[in-house]
């Protein structure tokens, strides 16, 4: 009994829905057949293509070329890691390269070099001054030798 009721309700809903849809589409399904067929051929003739539509001659070749391109094996090596690496190297080079010398830097550099040399020369000359000359050594040793000789003589006289 319940199933029969459901079927009736469904049939009613279906019927109502169809009516609503037909109203929405503004359709009149009950068009008399004779009215419809009258002049139908003329209208259909008018709506048929009146000229030939030809696609470009290149269309076939383009489609086949694109299809061939799709079945071609793809590159296995990916390019973007290499591009990223090149960018990183470029960045590091920029980071590590010293800045260009300006004229002021060059003047300062020349001044520092000359100051260094002047200081070095002074040290060398001081060292040269501090060093004993050959004549001095000879003189000193000669004196020491004479002294030893006299000491030796004196010791011999004592004994």
């Amino acid at each position, binding site marked *: 009994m319940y199933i029969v009721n459901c079927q009736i309700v469904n049939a009613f809903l279906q019927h109502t829905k169809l009516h609503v849809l037909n109203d929405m589409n503004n359709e009149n399904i009950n068009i008399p057949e004779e009215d419809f067929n009258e002049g139908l051929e003329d209208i259909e003739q008018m*709506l048929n*293509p009146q000229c030939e539509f030809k696609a470009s001659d290149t269309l*076939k070749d383009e489609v*086949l070329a694109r299809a061939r391109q799709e079945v071609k094996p793809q590159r296995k090596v990916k390019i973007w890691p290499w591009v990223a690496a090149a960018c990183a190297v470029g960045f590091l080079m920029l980071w590590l390269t010293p800045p260009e010398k300006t004229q002021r830097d060059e003047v300062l550099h020349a001044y520092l070099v000359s100051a260094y040399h002047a200081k070095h020369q002074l040290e060398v000359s001081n060292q040269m001054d501090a060093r004993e000359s050959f004549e001095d050594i000879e003189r000193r040793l000669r004196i020491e030798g004479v002294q030893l000789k006299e000491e030796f003589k004196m010791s011999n006289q004592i004994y």
Partner: protein
Amino acid sequence: MNEETEQLLSELERIVVERQDWLFRFAYMRIGVREDAEDVVQEVLLNVFRRLREKMHVESLEQYVIRSISNACKDYFRRRPLSIVPLDKAEQVPVHEGDKQIHEEFVRINKLLDTLPQEQSEIVRLKCYDDLTFKQIAELQDIPEATAKSRYRYAIMHLKSKMRGDS
């Protein structure tokens, strides 16, 4: 390229030769610009090729091609709403010398169907211009066959009354 791929390419070539003019007419009658219509046709044919390549199950290639071109034209208008030219200005659109005839045809048919609701004009276009059966139209539009027929009848009656009024 292996033998299977060569077979697929020759199959595609056969489909292109058989279908390209029909597909171009279908797309041109909706888009009205040769370059864009041919781009749409190319995409459809490449989709067919991909289907063949992936060995995807297609119940009927014929129906698949019809559905593809119809969807591709809808997508075209969805993607490029700014490139749509109103019908009264379509005649002034510059076209190549060789395309004058088909452009006039495009304008003629669209003017004829302009007064109909969109779903009816599309059914008339599919039936009369694209030469589809009511069964194919019903499958394409996802409507019962009877609805397709009634919409067609209504459209024809409307056109008839309009022509009587004009004359």
